[in-house]
């Protein structure tokens, strides 16, 4: 349900940066989505196709770079994927751990077509 609002934010950010750079068309959006912030699923593309109509980003492709959640062991410095059943270091068995990644949720870049006249001059 919240994907609609999130998609609108995404569109606003993409259009803002696209226009600022003088793009005439936005072809792709490269998103970084950490496992711990994975509040979006494939329905974002569906909402995107509706919301982006009539904008320079119409029909753009959304590329999701999924970042797995990771834990770090304080005792042996081992990094490993967060397992949804137990928080124990697979290397040394320690429970002295912290979250070391997976909270990302940002638009990394957009792939655009620039104004031909401007770029050639």
């Amino acid at each position: 349900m919240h994907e609609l609002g999130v998609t609108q934010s995404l569109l606003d950010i993409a259009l803002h940066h696209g226009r600022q750079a003088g793009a005439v068309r936005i072809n792709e959006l490269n998103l970084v989505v950490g496992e711990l912030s994975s509040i979006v699923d494939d329905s974002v593309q569906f909402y995107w196709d509706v919301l982006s109509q009539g904008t320079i980003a119409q029909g753009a492709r959304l590329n999701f770079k999924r970042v797995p959640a990771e834990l770090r062991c304080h005792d042996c410095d081992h990094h490993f994927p967060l397992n949804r059943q137990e928080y124990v270091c697979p290397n040394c068995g320690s429970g002295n751990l912290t979250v070391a990644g997976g909270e990302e949720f940002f638009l990394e870049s957009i792939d655009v077509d620039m104004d031909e006249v401007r770029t050639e001059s």
Partner: protein
Amino acid sequence: MPNTIPVVENIMSANDQIAAQTRIQLDRAGVLALNIMASPGGGKTSVILKTIEAFHDEVRMGVMDGDIVPIDLEKIADMGIPVSLINTGGNCHLDANMVHGALPSLPLDDLDLLIIENVGNLICPAAFKLGTHLSVVIASVPEGADKPYKYPAMFKGADVLLLNKMDLCEYQDFDVDYFRHGVEVLNPSLTFFPISCRTGEGFDAWLAWLRDRIAQRSSAG
């Protein structure tokens, strides 16, 4: 000419900006605000009612409730507390815009504590900042001890955790150590209170802690 333009902007930034405006308004009015999150049936309303009962004569409170029907809110309004219903229309969470829009419906200048009851859900509300000072997560014994492992984002972002229905521990295998370990890995600075709304066990510790936070707020404002 195809080009890649770097952006690196948080997708939640629009929400977070509105949350920041809410925070400014709350601070100006000297109000401490809580964002109460839990599963459906975890005990949000019970904790809120019991907290209001205890503080009724000493703290000026208001309640904002994200719900579809105003049943919970009527109980609170009957106690003479200003309330504001945010009709979420089935939405899975409150967002900063909904809360900001509801602020004018409460007499902020006459409040010390604003309690915001979020939608019953352990996933989506974690992602949407509201501008509150404290995120309070309520888990409960019947839900099982694996909740910090299944819903890490919710526990990672909390400031306070109430483990409710402790009186049911004797009826089911609830591994408190396993639960606490999960929480401590995700969030070492989290404040933790095991409580029971039914028996009152542990509730005084939560109230004492909250009372201190309200006092700090008032003296700072």
